[in-house]
């Protein structure tokens, strides 16, 4: 299980939990498990999210490995100038 930190407004879809646990070993599995467990997150996940894994931000990276003790933070998909 990895702990996944969600940003504040997503918590309305996770019964108010800021941090949820999912069984996942990769970026993609985190998103799939989140969407299954919390269908309210699905629209945001489909629009795109970034994910910070141990401080490094990934935008799309399905196979990026996640260790059980990794810090995983879901972030909005980022664009720049």
């Amino acid at each position: 299980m990895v702990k996944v930190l969600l940003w504040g407004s997503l918590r309305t879809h996770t019964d108010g939990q800021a941090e949820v646990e999912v069984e996942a070993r990769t970026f993609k599995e985190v998103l799939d498990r989140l969407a299954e467990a919390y269908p309210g997150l699905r629209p945001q996940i489909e629009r795109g999210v970034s994910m910070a894994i141990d401080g490094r931000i990934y935008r799309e990276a399905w196979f990026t490995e996640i260790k059980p003790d990794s810090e995983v933070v879901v972030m909005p998909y980022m664009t720049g100038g």
Partner: protein
Amino acid sequence: MALDSHGKREFKQIGTRVARPDGIDKVTGRALYGADMSAPGMLVGRILRSPHAHARILRIDTSEAEAIPGVKAVVTGADFSIPDDAALADISVNVMARTKALYDGHAVAAVAATSAQAAKAALKAIKVEYEVLPHVTDVDAAMAPDAPVVQKGRSLESVPAGMGANVTHHCEFGHGDLEAGFARADKIVERSFKTAATHQGYIEPHACLATMNGDGRADLWCCTQGQYMVRTVCAGVLGIEASQLRVTASEIGGGFGGKTTVFIEPVALMLAKKSGKPVKIVMTRDEVFKATGPTVSTSIDVKIGMTKAGRITAGAATLRYSGGAFPNTTVDMGAQAAFAAYDLDAVRTVGWNILTNRPKESAYRAPGAPQAIYAVESVVDELCLALNLDPLDVRILNAARKGTKSSYGPTFDDIGLLATLEAAKAHPHYNTPLKPGQSRGVSCGFWFNFGGNTCVSLNINTDGTVGVTEGNPDIGGSRASISLMAAEELGVPYDKVRTIIADTASLGYNDVTDGSRVTFAVGLATIKAARDAIKKMCGRVAKIWGIDEDAVEWRDGAAHPAGPNAGKFPPMTLEEIAAISFETGGPIAGHYEVNADGAGVSFGVHLCDLEVDKETGQTTILRYTVFQDAGKAVHPDYVEGQMQGGAVQGIGWALNEEYIYGADGRLLNAGFLDYRIPVASDLPKIDTQILEIPNPGHPYGVRGVGETGIVPPLAAVSNAVSRAIDVRMHELPMSPPRVLKAIKAARG
């Protein structure tokens, strides 16, 4: 070869100030920008725009226009279908209005004619019947429940029930116990701020040249930050296949985020399709201001608590952003970036996006961050003044550092904020006493930086020279940086390498030039492509020498036996290997494709000295210094250039730049005369100090440097002005009438 041991690695070429490969073309007038390309038989394309801020389009009669001699095609919204994808659909509706004109300047029809005169006459002959609707251009007014509704049904699921129809997005970030934090504070300051929409202000207006043959094959030449983005969007909007549309990026005359989307390209393609002839569209400056992306206009509340010693105990902010008539989520980035410079136990930011009858926002250098950080840094400055604390000491005390849980969630790795603050503290600028009437402002700035999809091809030519093919338009000298990285990695002189930017048919997909990603991500891919080529060259040499590939190593531009056990062979240079490549297995090329991650965040600190004419409210910037962490400055000239250019854009934003709307919702200052970007005589020297705290995510430690520089000036200037006039300013720009009013109000 000690790969990736940056910090220890001694660079031979990285960090030198070499001549850029496109330089001579650009100083002789030979470089071809968007409007500089022609095609035989080309038509002039022009766009008709709504004069109303908000109006239903009842009927468009183009028959008279079509009858004008020389007019070869007229298009309206009826010619375009609406793509299924919501983002594409918004772009499609933005480039050509369908049922409603959503802002002053929204395109409603377009013509292609054999001359500028005929095109102009045709625009006048198009009859559009409008039903003018109530409009709203102010972000706070638009949030009210009874505000005119810009677009119905656009709220995302993130918006709680009960909000006004213009509210399309809501977000929230942070951690810790705010109440407890504020309870620990000796002083709490809570203020509201407003910032005007500003335009990227690139000097080159959007321009393109489109052809589309009867068989559906199309070519497009345009100025853009991303030719692949243009291909994806145009193909999607026009319903054609990506392979049939080849997009070539011209030299680009500035972008700053404003050329990360399309405005005229699908229209030009549609006109080309209808007329069967090449069509060139060049925007006028007036169209650029009215119809292309400014940044968001904002309204922000900030509350910060501080102890007498200067430790921030809690910080909170509510941000209301409007990016015009279409939904966007730029506020996400503002809400995440607002407190990024601080190590906080308790922080919370709430963001809202609201529709207004303004043009669709485009990204502008660190989109969303300057406004949020301006508001936070203003309150921090007010607290420093109230508690009689040195503003740099307070920032050093509270600075985010390695191991800090950031305000947006992740824990920071190596970051350069503390080093940057300490450099500012030690700098002669900060230690020069101010003369009477002068004041000094300080602000931090932050940007995430991105990596993204990148594809690089590197060819070893038979004469020992190197060609690098990359896919990101070069806005500020990146071809030089990419060539430098290839030369460094291969161990060949810089002038043996030539980097070109491919069209969409010649190289795989690349994300747009945005998020300060090019030197980082394209650089990374170039280094990896060079290593791929090196591996192949070592393989050839291994065969020649009859030893294992592993027994060959690459050093100083040549293959060497790896250690005494590998055998005794004289080194073979790249040139020697290249010369016999046909005999040893064929051409040698390296490739790398990646969706790059690991872009290190970037921090900057700015110092600004100024004086204010208290009788007119006019601000004069006297001295300005930028401190920024570049990770590793590949080409220091262009790193400094980014720092200086960003600073000056921020100074313009702070002092004079703004979108001004009349009561009728029309833009009043759609030109460089009254949209006042800084001119040379407005400014002092902009001094720079590059810090190099290597980014662990890049082989050479590079961090993006393009965006952070625009973030600190807003507060650095505002804090200095506030200190000069002894009145806290809460609104940007601080145009002279606004400053004089504040001075007079304080006098009573």
